């Protein structure tokens, strides 16, 4: 199980991009294990191929001394949009989603993802592990396949390894390490192929429902990361890069929305958020750099406002942009940030519904704290006399709970007294001032809120429309 995370998802931070846009732990990244199970010529990988399957084996190797490759990588990464002048540009010539070299290698070593091989019509339904065990990943499955547990071959018989479907194999992410040249043009995909890859991922892989979503997520996350790496190496900084990054940001928002309730071993919200913010920052840089004025920009400038909703600086920046582009969505997000900072929960929850769907999804992360503020304020303002009671339905509608029952559950968790009127049968909430302090540290408040557009997305599932921004 552990190997799944280490081998396939390549979690952690992309040093190349982290360096440019200042991630909090950028200094330590490059010491993390190099999770390059699939990269050409990586020795830790071939060891594994020979049967050293114990994952901790190369975990320790990776964690040891700084790798010599690190220096070169850092040097490369410091060259952001600002220093493109003069230096010779690397232009990729790979015409497929995956360079042939990598495809052959991964095929030979059984490291293809289930999404990348020819599908057996007979085994496709049974090839996925039971959903409840969730975190069994593709590597595990492939190993099963190699060992013949699928019942279609002998143990370790290499001939039975799945064949790569060249139309579906995609270059996977690998950190640069010593002895590897990541700048070979035949390994790099030009913008048009990158765009096709993104489109394929969003249209064909993202909506897949035949396996747990976290597997889809890990696969797409990894392949999109490789795309970002290709863009950095080739210094693609034009409108193509903008479109691709916009899609990636949306994907991360959607992923958070789908997986936020999963256990940390399946989905790590912090890493997802970090990549989201990294991509968004880079996107904003590129907007400025290209003087990009399309309407899609408004949405992401607004997102920036919502990401740093409590930041004086970001909102100040948003004000200065607002004068240049008269954008409704940006205005709403600024007003929401103001409402958030002034703790005007009524205004905040009213504005949520006016945002585009993808931003509403993002707002879930603020709903919890906004409700927390609201309960605190209600304790202070309404909790003085015993006779002061608030109708439960009023709280439900102001804080966008989807039903009175939900409100009831939340308030019950916080030990707030709820009484029923014997005549009208309506429920009332009785806050107490003494509970106010407790409210500020309350946990477990729901973050789901009543949103028509999110409901419709969940129902009709048109994810490519939601995420794809090409």
């Amino acid at each position, binding site marked *: 199980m552990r190997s799944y995370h280490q081998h396939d998802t390549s979690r952690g931070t992309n040093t190349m991009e982290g360096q440019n846009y*200042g991630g909090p732990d950028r200094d330590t990244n490059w010491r993390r294990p190099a999770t390059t199970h699939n990269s050409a010529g990586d020795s830790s990988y071939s060891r594994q191929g020979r049967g050293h399957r114990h994952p901790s084996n190369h975990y320790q190797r990776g964690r040891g001394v700084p790798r010599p490759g690190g220096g070169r990588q850092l040097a490369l990464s410091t060259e952001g*949009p*600002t*220093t493109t002048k003069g230096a010779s540009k690397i232009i990729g010539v790979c015409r497929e989603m995956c360079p042939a070299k990598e495809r052959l290698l991964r095929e030979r070593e059984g490291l293809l993802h289930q999404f990348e091989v020819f599908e057996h019509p007979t085994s496709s339904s049974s090839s996925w592990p039971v959903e409840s065990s969730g975190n069994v990943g593709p590597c595990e499955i492939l190993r099963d396949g190699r060992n013949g547990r699928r019942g279609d071959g002998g143990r370790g018989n290499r001939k039975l390894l799945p064949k790569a479907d060249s139309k579906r194999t995609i270059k996977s992410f690998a950190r640069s390490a010593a002895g590897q040249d990541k700048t070979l043009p035949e390994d790099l995909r030009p913008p048009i192929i990158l765009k096709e890859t993104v489109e394929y991922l969003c249209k064909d892989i993202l909506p897949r429902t035949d396996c747990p979503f976290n597997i889809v997520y890990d696969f797409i996350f990894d392949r999109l990361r490789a795309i970002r790496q290709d863009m950095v190496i080739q210094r693609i900084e034009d409108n193509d890069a903008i479109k691709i990054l916009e899609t990636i940001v949306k994907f991360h928002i959607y992923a958070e929305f789908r997986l936020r309730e999963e256990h940390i071993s399946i989905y790590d919200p912090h890493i997802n958020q970090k990549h989201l913010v990294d991509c968004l*920052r880079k996107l*904003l*840089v590129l907007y*400025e*750099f290209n*003087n990009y004025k399309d309407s899609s920009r408004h949405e992401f400038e607004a997102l920036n406002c919502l990401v740093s909703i409590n930041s*004086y*600086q970001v*909102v*100040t*920046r948003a*004000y*200065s942009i607002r*004068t240049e582009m008269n954008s409704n969505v940006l205005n709403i997000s600024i007003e929401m940030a*103001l409402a958030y*900072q*002034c*703790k*005007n*929960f*009524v*205004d905040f929850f009213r504005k949520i519904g006016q945002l585009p769907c993808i931003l509403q999804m993002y707002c879930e992360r603020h709903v919890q704290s906004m409700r927390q503020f609201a309960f*605190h*304020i*209600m304790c*202070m*303002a*309404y*909790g*003085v*006399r015993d*006779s*002061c*009671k*608030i*109708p439960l339905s*009023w709280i439900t509608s*102001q804080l966008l709970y989807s039903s009175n029952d939900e409100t009831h559950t939340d308030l019950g968790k916080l030990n707030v007294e709820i009484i029923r009127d014997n005549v009208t049968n309506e429920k009332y909430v009785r806050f107490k001032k003494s509970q106010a302090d407790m409210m500020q540290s309350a946990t477990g408040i729901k973050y789901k809120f009543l949103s028509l557009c999110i409901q419709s997305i969940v129902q009709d599932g048109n994810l490519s429309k939601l995420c794809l921004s090409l």
Partner: protein
Amino acid sequence: MSNMTINSYIHQIGNAWEDCDGDRVAELLSLQDPHVLSSRLSEDEPQDVVGDSLESPLSEMVIFHLKVVKELNTQSFNKALNLQCQFGQFFCKVFQSQKDENWGLTLMEKLVEDLRKIALSVQQFDEPDERSSEEHAPTGMEKAADVIMALFRVCAADTRTQEHNTKRWGMMILVNHLFKIYFRINRLQLCKPLIRAIEQQSFKDQFPREQMVTYKYYVGRKAMFDSEFHEADDCLTYAFYHASTLENKKKILTYLTPVKMFLGFLPTDEALKKYDLIEFGHVAEALKDGNIFKFKAALEKSEAKFIKAGVYLILEKLHMTLYRNLFKKVCLIYKNHQVPINVLTAALKWAGHEDIDTDETHCIVANLICDGQIRGYISHQHQVVVVAKQNSFPKVSSIEHELR
């Protein structure tokens, strides 16, 4: 001075260096000294002449300086910046090797100031087509910041020397230059470690006054950006009282006035007139009256100015105080301790908050009670606000703003 020959220049700087006369060396290596105007110093190959007559490391520094002068005379700011950066890096090594002495500080001061100014010129003149922006930092500024940072490390690390000749006296001037750069390229998050380094010094209050004023001005602005308004108030007040020129005082007041208003002190018209900041006067007047229409108009009128200075958000946040003042008036007129919510909603609507309804009024009043701006409680059942019989609207300045 302005037609100094190369030999005389070399002679003078050589002597000054031998005497460890930091001020004179600094003058002779500064770009603001009249000697840079001398056409006779622009030798094509200064290496030969200088190398023959001066010892290392002074000779290298003089060569760098003369090269920079030459590039600036031809307006090649980018080249000049690179050379000045090399000069700075070289000086950094020299300075570090000068143990237990700090007479080089004045030279460092001049060098860094020149460096920053060249970087600014690069940004202004060399690439007019590339818009400088918050996120996309101009490289020139960053290059300069790197050099200054290296010098800062040398100064900050000089901890074993006695107080009177430690290089740590140079920290504040470097920090101030870094502040100027970071505020320009919008990298405020980088300021924090610098502030911490200064605050750790035992003689943090004994730096020269003009340096202290600059320092406090930027720390105050930073605190405002972090919504730490009391801290901002302290720093900016110090800077205001110690600043020497009217122009600087005006700059400081641009930030101090909104912070003070937020903390419940309104500026007087005379003061605003004196410093030509009358736009805050309109805001203050509307705030005092609780007039939402007027308040909005005052913000809108000077919107561009406020946004540029970065004070627009704090002014927007004054809305809560504005509502408090309005409600206070309503309560005085209503002459009752129990004021129906509807009355307050009507007042808000009348004063300029068009799209208000009962629910939002509830929220606003509840917030004000929670903040301590109104003493009382709300009865949802009867839809009234019950205010305290005494001191129902405490002074804004007496309220702690930590909760906001």
